[in-house]
């Protein structure tokens, strides 16, 4: 290893002796100084053995202090505001802002998150197959997107709503951009929070549908989900024209993400881009999403102009893991298994640096809101109970 490293090791060993010197002087003995002198030229290994023998029992604690390990970051993550109030040309009751960070995710000692993450609840414009544990909570509203939106805002506490226009898919109903516009209007009427618009993932329809959505949402500062490497121009043009934000969505590939963002720069300003590297479920590729998000956040903080954007996650993908929904009693109640799966998927990605969670299960939404609140500052803990003697009821 480098001589630097050796030097630091020598120094720290020396520091340790230094501490001893002070200490032992207090306790009236000079042995330590003699020992220190004798030790200096000796091999470190021997020194360590000697300290153990001679200094076996310090009489009091050897004070040491902890230095906060601050990092240096040259840049910050872009701030993005979604939604617009009346005064801002829209009709929303409030706006939400994400990003703006100056430190790695949750490195509170460096800087707390500029804007804590937010949760968007998924709303679909038609009845869709859902895991039973999720469906239970939505069966009343499955055919009415406006009621669905009200439910997630009023009852489940969603910060914003993502309206997925999946019925526009040629395979799922092939509804027109004008039909989609009507649904958007209904949802805008139904709730006061900012709304985000999701397309169906049909390469032929996504462009026209999102372009129409951009037009209908004029003034509302919505997020158009999503531009991909295959379909982006029509969406970016519409976003520019109607001043909307675009979700730049790629498939677990950081270079592809940079490439797509570069292309979007032709039309969009930095305050119009949110990035999504694709969320894979806990147990089914979560680590790829985790690591790409972590790299994107760090890259952005270190000045990579193509990566310094808030990050979004389709956290509902957690339900793709069979362990989340399988009707298999030996795995425990699926009413708990599913939402904890979605919650843990979110928590891991939150710690990696995700800003916007698109979610479904009400218990998971509640849990992630709690987690954000618990983690956004390093509150002093008054008491650490002694768990070694805790009496925990048997069998739980």
């Amino acid at each position, binding site marked *: 290893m480098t001589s630097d490293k050796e030097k630091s090791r020598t120094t720290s060993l020396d520091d340790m002796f230094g*501490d001893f010197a002070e200490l032992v002087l207090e306790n009236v003995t000079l042995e330590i100084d003699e020992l220190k002198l004798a030790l200096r030229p000796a091999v470190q290994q021997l020194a360590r053995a000697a300290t153990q023998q001679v200094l076996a029992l310090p009489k009091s*604690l050897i004070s040491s*202090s902890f230095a906060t*390990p601050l990092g240096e970051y040259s840049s910050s993550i872009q701030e993005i505001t979604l939604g617009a109030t009346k005064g801002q040309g829209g009709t929303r009751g409030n706006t939400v802002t994400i990003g703006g960070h100056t430190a790695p995710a949750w*490195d509170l000692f460096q800087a707390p998150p500029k804007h804590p993450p937010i949760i968007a609840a998924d709303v679909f414009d038609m009845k869709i197959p859902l895991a039973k544990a999720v469906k239970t909570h939505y069966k009343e509203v499955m055919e009415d997107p406006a009621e669905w939106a009200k439910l997630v805002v009023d009852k489940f506490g969603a910060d914003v709503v993502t309206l997925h226009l999946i019925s526009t898919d040629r395979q799922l109903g092939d509804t027109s951009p004008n039909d989609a516009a009507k649904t958007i209007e209904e949802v805008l009427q139904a709730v006061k929070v900012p709304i985000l618009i999701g397309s169906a993932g049909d390469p032929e329809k996504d462009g026209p549908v999102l372009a129409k959505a951009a037009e209908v949402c004029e003034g509302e500062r919505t997020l158009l989900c999503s531009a991909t490497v295959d379909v982006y121009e029509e969406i970016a043009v519409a976003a520019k024209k109607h001043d909307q934000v675009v979700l730049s969505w790629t*498939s677990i590939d950081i270079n592809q993400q940079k490439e797509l963002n570069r292309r979007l720069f032709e039309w969009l300003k930095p305050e119009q881009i949110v990035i999504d590297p694709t969320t894979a479920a806990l147990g089914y590729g979560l680590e790829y999403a985790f690591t790409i998000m972590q790299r994107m956040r760090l890259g952005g903080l270190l000045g990579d102009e193509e990566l310094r954007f808030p990050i979004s996650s389709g956290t509902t993908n957690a339900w793709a893991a069979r362990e989340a929904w399988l009707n298999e009693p030996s795995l425990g109640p699926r009413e708990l298994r599913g939402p904890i799966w979605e*919650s843990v998927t979110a928590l891991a990605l939150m710690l990696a640096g995700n800003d916007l969670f698109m979610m479904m299960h009400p218990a998971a939404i509640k849990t992630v809101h709690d987690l954000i609140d618990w983690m956004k500052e390093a509150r002093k803990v008054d008491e650490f109970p002694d*768990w070694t*003697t805790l009496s925990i009821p048997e069998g739980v």
Partner: protein
Amino acid sequence: MAKLPGPLEIYPLLPGTNCQDCGEANCMAFATKMAEHTVKLKACTPLYEDPKYAKKLVKLEELVTPPVREVTIGVGEFAASIGAKLVLYRHDLRYSNPTSFFLDVADNLEADAFAARVKEIEDWTYTYIGTGLRLDGIALRGVSTDPQTFAKAAKKLTEISNWPIILCSLDPAMLAAGAKAIADKRPLLYAATMDTWSEVGEIAVKHDLPLVAYAPGSLDNLATLTNTLRAMGVKELVLDPGTASKAGLGATVDNFTQLRRSAIIRENELLGYPLLSAPIAVWADHREGEAPELTKWDEVLTAAAMIVRYSDLLILHSADMWTNLPLTFLRSNLYTDPVKPVAVEAGLVEFGDVGPDSPVMYTTNFALTYFTVESDIKQAGSTAYLVVVDTEGMSVQSAVAGRKLTAEKVAETLEETGIADKVKHKVLISPGMAARISGETEEASGWTIKVGPKDSSGIGKYLQEGKWKEE
């Protein structure tokens, strides 16, 4: 990031005899693997056996000591090694030694309940991508507060289990009794505090056991305690800055992150030890008669945050499937080597004794998708051909959405594998998630598409029912 030694720094300190005892072709090859952290120094036996290499060994050990040292708990095949971390972010290299999960056993349980609890912990397992996930060790808690009871329970534990043990008590008299009873099993002692460091440190030194330094809520205190215990001669330390859930989770995550950052980025070797967290502490909030699920939920969240944020060892209480599945999965995911490719090779795979009547299915080459499907087919004992389509490492659902899985791609792959010559039917079973491209695929390939289950766990049943053969 701490600078890790390269092969050229390691090589001059090796014997240089190219004896191949380590299994490598020569000393340079061994040095290269050392630098990649894929072999351990101990594999170079001459270094340890021949006194003439003693000086080199000392230097080498110093050189290759990871910024977070390794601590081993227990003995024999079940011993748990924790720490030995080289990087802060997994993308910088990889994380080594997956977080160990130790579950608690109270020392005052009746004999039957005690044995049942140990069995419950040892038997917890789940098959995931072909490997059995399991827990790692047992944390014996001194609930009785009676040293004799504690020592007896420790002894009993070593009689019924080979698993590594943590002796947990903040009372030095308890730890003295426990350590005396089972020192030969190398338990981890939990814990020395700012009040008990002198007595507990002495116990650890006397029996040469690894010890936890516990100073909740103050990193200055933890540094002081660590400094002091080292000076006493405690060689293997584990650090616990205290675990708080809920409103305390922010501070907990922050403390663990600062400690690991100090060790790896700042190369502060005083704090270069494995970290322990105790999500079990959530049970202090549990009230008798209350539904335990809420407390378990909190324990899972706390543990998940601590797996992500640098805990090398967790102490847990819940032994349920639904609590430990997400945690063991999360651990597996984060400790996967990030250079492991996202994709497997495309082509044809055979399962069982295939013949001309065997079913033909297809899937994508995303590694996770492939291994899940493979494991499901094997578990079901099915006989089948599996055509693996190159989707640039994307799962079925994403590949269909991202147009990496298209009718043309499927047709092309069928052609390349020559599967048409191996079976005497032209029926292709598609993943349920690729149903939307089945029409196009029939046109492009000339094969009849039958849509299989959406989740590969249904493959066994689907094939057994034989519907794919029907007209």
